């Protein structure tokens, strides 16, 4: 964790109050028009070499945030700073050299690989786009990349549908690391995989980070995965970050009631350690993001909620080194 100390100069990517709104409902009748704040004023920093885990329930905006950070979605407000440069409104052309430094791994490896392309073409695509070298150089590099992710040259001429889910995700990873990016944004990269295969792919991510010095933003709803890979976590609820901190600290002493509830819901495989009766059940469902609750977004489901929580929205406040929480009554 020493990489995090006094490291402002080594911030690789920074999100400054990034918001993403989607218009839903009628385009013609204004009364039926609604705006969904999928991402609502998120500020984050990713330090070179670390893994930032982003967790939250499905629908909390973590995938949208990830897609905003790679400019797959245009952000509605805020800035995205990469290596000290504002890339929020760069044109596609100006963005191209930056594209090779930020890559993405997608959730569903079956959907993120074009079924008409052979593995060779999939992995060579980034190399061709960014003019890596001659044909034979690209061929050699593709074979090398396949080896790195645990596949072999035998797989070159095969099609995605001939692989298992885990192998497909390896192909997606090979494509993402082909250009030796600085930052890889992994959007739920293992949640579509069998549990037995998840561990292998997670190990591959960690192995690659060590070898290539990658920085990850690892988006997941599975807390045990996040706990294993992330140095730091950001917990999202309804489009906003409610808590950030070093993984150990957040998992051992959650400061936000929502984080506490999330962590208490993780099944513990050891019956002796299983927290009997300490499980916090959240009341109700995630509110409709088109009509979020007043004040603290979490107050209708929070067992600690008080009158202020209904009226005043808590800001993300620093409560310790590397620790921020958006709660009027933090638990630590």
């Amino acid at each position, binding site marked *: 964790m020493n990489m995090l100390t006094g490291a402002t100069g080594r911030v690789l990517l920074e999100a400054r109050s990034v918001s993403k709104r989607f218009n839903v409902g009628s385009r013609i009748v204004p009364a039926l028009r609604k705006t969904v704040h999928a991402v609502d004023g998120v500020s984050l920093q990713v330090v070179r070499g670390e893994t930032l885990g982003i967790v939250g329930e499905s629908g909390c905006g973590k995938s949208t945030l990830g897609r905003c950070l790679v400019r797959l979605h245009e952000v509605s407000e805020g800035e995205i700073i990469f290596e000290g440069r504002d890339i929020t409104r760069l044109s596609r052309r100006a963005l191209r050299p930056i594209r090779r430094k930020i890559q993405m791994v997608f959730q569903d490896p079956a959907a993120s690989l*074009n079924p008409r*392309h052979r593995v060779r073409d999939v992995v060579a*695509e980034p190399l061709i786009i960014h003019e890596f070298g001659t044909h034979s150089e690209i061929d050699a590099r593709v074979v090398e990349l396949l080896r790195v992710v645990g596949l072999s040259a035998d797989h070159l001429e095969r*099609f995605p549908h001939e692989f298992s889910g885990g192998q497909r995700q390896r192909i997606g990873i090979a494509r993402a690391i082909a250009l030796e990016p600085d930052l890889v944004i992994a959007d739920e990269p293992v949640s579509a995989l069998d549990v037995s*295969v998840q561990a292998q792919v997670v190990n591959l991510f960690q192995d690659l980070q060590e070898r290539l010095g990658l920085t990850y933003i690892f988006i997941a709803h599975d807390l045990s995965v996040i706990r294993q890979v992330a140095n730091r976590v950001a917990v999202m609820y309804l489009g906003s970050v409610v808590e950030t901190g070093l993984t150990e600290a957040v998992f051992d002493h959650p400061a936000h009631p929502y984080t506490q509830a999330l962590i208490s819901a993780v099944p513990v495989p050891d019956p002796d350690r299983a927290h009997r009766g300490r499980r916090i059940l959240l009341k109700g469902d995630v509110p409709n993001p088109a009509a979020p609750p007043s004040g603290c977004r979490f107050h209708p489901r929070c067992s600690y909620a008080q009158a202020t929580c209904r009226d005043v929205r808590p800001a993300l406040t620093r409560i310790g080194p590397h620790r921020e929480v958006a709660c009027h009554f933090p638990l630590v």
Partner: protein
Amino acid sequence: MASEIGAAISDQDYARVLDAWTAPELPASAAQGYWHAALAKVRRNRAAMVAVVALFLFLTSCVMAPLYAHLVAHINPFKSNLDGTVLIGGKQVPVMQSASNGLGVTPVGPTWRFGPYMLGADGQGRDVAARLLYGGRVSLLVGAASTVICLSFAVLLGIAAGFYGGIINRVISVMLDILWAFPIYLLAISLSIILINSGIRIGPLVVHSDDLILPIAIIGIIYVPYVARPIRAQVMTLRRSDFVMASICLGASDLRILRREILPNVASTLIVFTPIMMALNIITEASLSFLGIGVQPPSASWGTIIRDGEHLLYTRPLVSIAPGLAIVITVVALNILGDALRDALDPRAKLTLH
């Protein structure tokens, strides 16, 4: 116990075992790729292969129409032959026979022999068999050419609307909707009546009213919305797909995404549409020609021959039935082929390709 087993097997061994275990069993043919697999699937479809053979026979015989007219029928099928005779059973028989009641004439019936008037004569004393072959050339040509026009426009408009979205999508969609709002035959008939009466004269561009390009263009245009809309919908879905997102992340240009990611997927839709649209176009051409506003004389098509036989329905029904059968067989064959292609190429079926 469990932990001991876990320690004995290294992660890599475990990965290998698991991957071997979870990888689907595949026949060797699957490695040939999408198009090969689809082609193999069509080949295994017996009905489709019969249809292909039938279409091939029709096409070759129609292409060889002049050979038939010169070498077998010994006749110009575009010249009326009201005073001629034909040798039937050793006797010279007039092509046009006066009716016993003295009212009107009846053309000679089919000889069923590989020679002149095999299928009899029409009201002008012309050889129906030879005209059938010449008409087939025109029908198939109009059907194919209008399909090319229709699919070209549909692909251009569908991809432009689906890929770029926004204002381009709106403008194209409205254009297609306007075209779609017309009952298809009403549109075809009104366009045909106007254009075939006057031809086209725009500056240096002169199209005569009997030019084949008129029915080709009319039939090609009227079905554009029926193909462009599904393509537009497909492109919109592809545009949002993860693999296009991945391509954008890699920094691919629009052109590259269109060429590498979108078009290969649209191609299968086009291939499925081709025989189906051709069948539809052949029927439309026949309908317009039957009404006299499609293919114009001196050209003949299956539709015009049916019309030629209209007043002979009671005496020589074969004049109308023969081209009618030709249309039915062609259209059924094309539809069977289209179904087989759809089964082989359907994007929803692709996951069960093997």
